[in-house]
């Protein structure tokens, strides 16, 4: 099935760039342009708070081109600057530094800057609240370095954009992207662990062989000093509700029972470990699972970096595909054929 055809079967989608200038906006505009006009999209972008780098360098958020019938949410300030004709449908209760977030339907196509809700929770609320306007698909334009905007609590599926701006060396670029993809595609935890752990909002929890739930009495994995070494003594599974850190992963890696323990996190956006520690963990036989996952639809690559480096597009796509095993597209070069 074609890239666009596949997208038409989705209900919700996040697009996240691994670095600035990896072609996230190009990718979003590509999708919005190619979707048939009878297919209605609701779209927003993570708030300006999320895109702090843009604020620092003073460059504006990129403009998105929207077609007639598209529903979009943006801040009051950007709404006033829109270059399209739109029917205002709702003033949401979400606020941002650029005023309230408003939702409108495009009457005559044109350009608009999007700056919607700025946290994973509020984006998740947004997805639910635009349901009443019955879009066929909701798209969240995620922020750089804010993978939380790709959380499965917001959308069921995901497109990653990566490219020469992330790393100028082809091998490194592929390796680092593959690492992220591995995390995105982690297997689901067993059903008994999911049902036991999914409701836990914070803390570190365990489950023993009899199914008893153990509370390690710490607020987060940052406080692991208080747990020390008996953590894995009686557990078959350990669940970290908040961020999974290098130190915590190291603690499990160093345990004699590393092979017997299933380490569980909510989803890949909660994982904050470096690649080296991750490899050590895997080599020692560690297992990491998630309670919720999103489907990775494609990796889009941009072989051009803003510093002038241009990688070989075909080679990059080929190497990347071999590494990640999901469709890889260079939209700028091959946009008409995918």
């Amino acid at each position, binding site marked *: 099935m074609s890239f666009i055809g596949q997208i038409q079967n989705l209900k919700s989608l996040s697009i996240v760039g691994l670095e600035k200038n990896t072609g996230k906006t190009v990718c979003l505009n590509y999708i919005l342009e190619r979707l048939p006009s009878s297919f209605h999209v609701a779209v927003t972008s993570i708030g300006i708070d999320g895109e702090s780098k843009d604020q620092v360098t003073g460059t504006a958020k990129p403009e998105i081109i929207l077609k007639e019938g598209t529903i979009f949410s943006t801040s009051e300030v950007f709404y006033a600057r829109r270059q399209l004709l739109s029917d205002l449908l709702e003033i949401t209760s979400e606020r941002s530094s650029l005023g309230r977030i408003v939702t409108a339907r495009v009457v*005559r196509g044109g350009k608009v800057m999007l700056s919607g809700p700025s946290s994973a929770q509020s984006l998740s609320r947004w997805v639910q609240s635009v349901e009443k306007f019955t879009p066929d698909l909701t798209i969240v334009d995620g922020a750089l370095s804010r993978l939380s905007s790709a959380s499965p609590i917001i959308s069921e599926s995901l497109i990653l954009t990566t490219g020469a701006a992330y790393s100028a060396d082809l091998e490194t670029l592929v390796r680092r992207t593959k690492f992220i993809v591995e995390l995105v595609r982690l297997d689901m935890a067993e059903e008994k662990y999911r049902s036991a752990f999914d409701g836990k909002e914070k803390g570190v929890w365990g489950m023993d062989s009899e199914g008893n739930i153990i509370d390690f009495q710490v607020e987060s994995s940052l406080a692991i000093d208080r747990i020390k070494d008996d953590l894995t003594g009686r557990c078959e599974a350990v669940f970290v509700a908040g961020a999974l850190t290098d130190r915590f992963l190291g603690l499990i890696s160093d345990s004699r029972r590393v092979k017997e323990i299933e380490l569980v996190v909510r989803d890949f956006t909660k994982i904050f470990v470096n690649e080296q520690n991750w490899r050590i963990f895997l080599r020692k036989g560690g297992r990491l699972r998630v309670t919720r996952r999103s489907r990775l639809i494609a990796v889009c690559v941009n072989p051009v970096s803003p510093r002038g480096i241009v990688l070989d597009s075909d080679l990059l796509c080929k190497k990347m595909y071999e590494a990640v095993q999901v469709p890889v597209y260079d939209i700028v070069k091959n946009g008409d054929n995918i």
Partner: protein
Amino acid sequence: MVDELQLQSSYGRSRLLQSPFMTSRVEIQKAFTLLGDCYRTLYVEGGGAASSALASLKHRLMCLRDISGTLDRLSRDVVLDDVDLFEIKYLALLAGNVAREAATLNLDGVHIPDLEAVVRILDPDGMKIESFYVYDMYSKELGRIRADIRKLQGLSPDLKLSSPRLLELLEKERLLERDIRENLSHMLKNHLSEIKEGMDALGDLDVLLAKALQMKMMGLCIPKISDDSRTSYAGLFHPYVVHKYETQAAIGGKKKVFIPVDLQFGLESVTIIGANMGGKTVVLKMTALNQLLFQFGFGVAAASATIDIKEDIRVCIGDDQDLASGLSSFAGEVKAIDNVLKGMVTGSRMLALIDEPARTTNPIEGTALVTALLNILKNKKISVLMTTHYNVPGDFFRRLKVRGLVDGQMDYTLEETSEGEIPHEAINVARSLDIDAKWLDEAEKILNENKD
């Protein structure tokens, strides 16, 4: 009580917080006629149909938003933008829908201003859809320009800004839209006061419905306004304590029942004496609460009530010991009472509720202080309820006594009593609390020795 109100909108809450402490008989009468009618219609006469219509009405009120900011801009002749215009249209449509639903519920006293004229300004197509943009309908020229833009732009939404003709049209469109918004703002300004009244009326309706629901949930009553300066309660209860008992019973705790009491007082001083744990302080708290509920137009926590309107309520209950400001219990207390005396000088109609004045000092001076206080308050045309353990001489005030322990059960009934009758039940009450018997036996022995 305010926190327990189930309001649908934050504007309802801000209307509630703005509502005044009413002292005018006409206003209070009006408020209770409205609340009484509303309660009767919804919960006494109303059946299943009423409750589903009510649910839908409440759902509408959830959409009420505070648009004071927009209205303020309108009053200052600022040209409103699409977001402002949307807010006003949304409110005007909401007012229409709420008015219709209130009418089907027969809420006769509820008046929502008709904002149909405002709707017509912002809804030229008559679609009654809650959305807004500068519609083609507003100007023939705008419609023409937009049609031309569409033709030039073709199907691609990407503006071909290289075309000077398109640029020119877009600029024309922008200027026309600006003129239309200016014109709309101008027209809306003529309706500014109705719009504001409409928003307030919706907020007030939210408060009214919440008050009626609270009456049903807590078993509150509509009070009568007293004609003879006398206040009288039958079946007075404390909603918070009742609620606590009910939750305790519901989670399988010890079953306790709150026993309502009757109470009457006029412009006079009334002392309440009686055993410890006899509910004396609770009587003061209930009286204070109900006076406030009455004058803020809430249902009152009693089976029935006739209440005198007061201009001032002073309450001295609890221990005012304050280490930070260096006040001992005694100092805190006399300061609070001093406050009552100072307030009295203004000559306003006052209700003063004083819990065991001078209890933290020795009984000899304490009795003198309380007697003197009652002397000063005598003939002052204010209502004073005061609990005390002291035996105050004199017949210039009324005495009420908690009936006390009867067959080991506390009887909370208040009855008139005469001078000198101070109950001696402290030891018996302490026994019912499982206090160390050695201590209590010793105390009883000392008492008996003193008698002999």
